[in-house]
């Protein structure tokens, strides 16, 4: 039955080459922890992606309750945390996942650096990876404000003060992020938009490029 459905779609869309491209690739011995346990360092990239998927899914569920305005934001998070069934777990996953993704990405970066995998011909993939790192830090910074509690608000005040201290573009960058002079209603909606639409969009594009390049070039050989 499944085979028939597959054949029916394949006859119309010719998905076999695509399916083989996605699913069928080699796992060389030197990156396979089943053969050399020390190869677990090659898992950090995959784990970063795994946690990223957790972040996307838990974030999607959080927006079912979250209200991005300064009067209701805190109340909606409080409600989610204390009243909604399993809300505390979903919010906990998003909160801890944010830290975990940074940790995993840091370890992945160190692995790539110390195995010299960023060298020719993989320079572009390294650059895309560092850009993903920046996007993740941006997601962490903007997401921190959204619960609109004390630590969120004052961390953002300090963060935007630091941004403002940059020469030439500082004032512009702060106005763009804060949406005006004061850090208030406009800032929250901007951070929400950046956190939920702009940065995830950029992240998905960069991840696509990252994976395309690794598949095209193959993983770097053993040292």
């Amino acid at each position, binding site marked *: 039955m499944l085979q028939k459905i597959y054949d029916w779609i394949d*006859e119309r869309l010719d998905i076999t080459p695509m399916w083989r491209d996605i699913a069928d690739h*080699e796992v060389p011995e030197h990156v396979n922890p089943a053969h050399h346990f020390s190869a677990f360092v090659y898992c950090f990239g995959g784990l970063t992606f795994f946690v990223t998927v957790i972040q996307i899914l838990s974030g999607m569920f959080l927006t079912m309750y979250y209200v991005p305005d*300064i009067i209701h934001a805190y109340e909606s998070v409080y409600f989610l945390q204390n009243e909604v069934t399993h809300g505390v*777990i979903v919010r*906990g996953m998003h909160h801890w996942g944010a830290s975990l993704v940074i940790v995993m990405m840091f370890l992945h970066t160190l692995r790539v650096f*110390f195995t010299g995998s960023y060298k020719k011909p993989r320079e572009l993939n*390294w650059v895309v990876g560092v850009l993903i790192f920046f996007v993740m830090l941006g997601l962490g910074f903007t997401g921190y404000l959204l619960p609109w509690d004390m*630590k969120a608000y004052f961390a953002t005040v300090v963060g935007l003060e630091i941004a403002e*201290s940059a020469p030439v573009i500082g004032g512009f960058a702060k106005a763009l992020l804060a949406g005006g002079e004061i850090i208030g209603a406009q800032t929250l909606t901007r951070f929400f938009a950046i956190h939920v639409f702009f940065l995830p969009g950029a992240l998905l594009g960069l991840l696509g490029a990252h994976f395309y390049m690794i598949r095209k070039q193959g993983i770097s050989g053993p040292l």
Partner: protein
Amino acid sequence: MHRGKGMKFVGDSRIPAERKPNIPKDYSEYPGKTEAFWPNFLLREWMVGAVFLVGFLCLTVAHPAPLERMADPTDSGYIPLPDWYFLFLYQLLKYEFASGPYTVIGAVVIPGIAFGALLLAPWLDQGPERRPIRRPIASSIMLLAVASVIFLTWESVDQHDWEAAAQQGAIVDFEVDEESYAFEIWTTQQNCINCHGGDMLGGAAAPAVFESDYSKEEVIDIIKNGAPGMPADQFEGTDEELEILAAFIANDGQDPEDD
């Protein structure tokens, strides 16, 4: 693949009519013990992923995400702290060479050089050697950078007053004894409820009645004579009831005789 004249397509589409068999590539001649990602490796990866997920869920259940009280922009005494992975950047701004008139150095120049070098690493280290020991300059700079990040984060955590931080952000929560006689009196006071809420914990126009630390006598005085933003003589009841309610309010929502 068929090329040129005689090509066959599915209907009038551009999909070739000739079906390709869906068989995996052959890795048997690759060096070492190379195996296929699908399904051999993926199955094992999923099992590791499941263990990882269980550990992760245990963490979220054991430690719920923190939530402080609602943001109050007027509370200028609050000591701010960014999330832990920004602490090293934050700590940098506390040193003399990177603060005050030199803030630009700590906020832009040093992080700019560090992250710029990270981004351009493939062009800064162009040698063909991959082993870290064979490219000592690149490796030692990276080790130094990692050590500095760890050191700065450590210093920041060490210098922060965590007890004061927990206190300044704590959610102020009053437990109101709704079984008490005093609460029964409250439920009859529509004027009070209009602003302070049916649960005594504040509403649209006024804060929780327990917010300030007044004595019983001061509470009676405020109810009788009003306060800034609160009209006088709104209580409708006997003096005895007023006294019981005031004592209840002064005692943060518990019957004073229960203690």
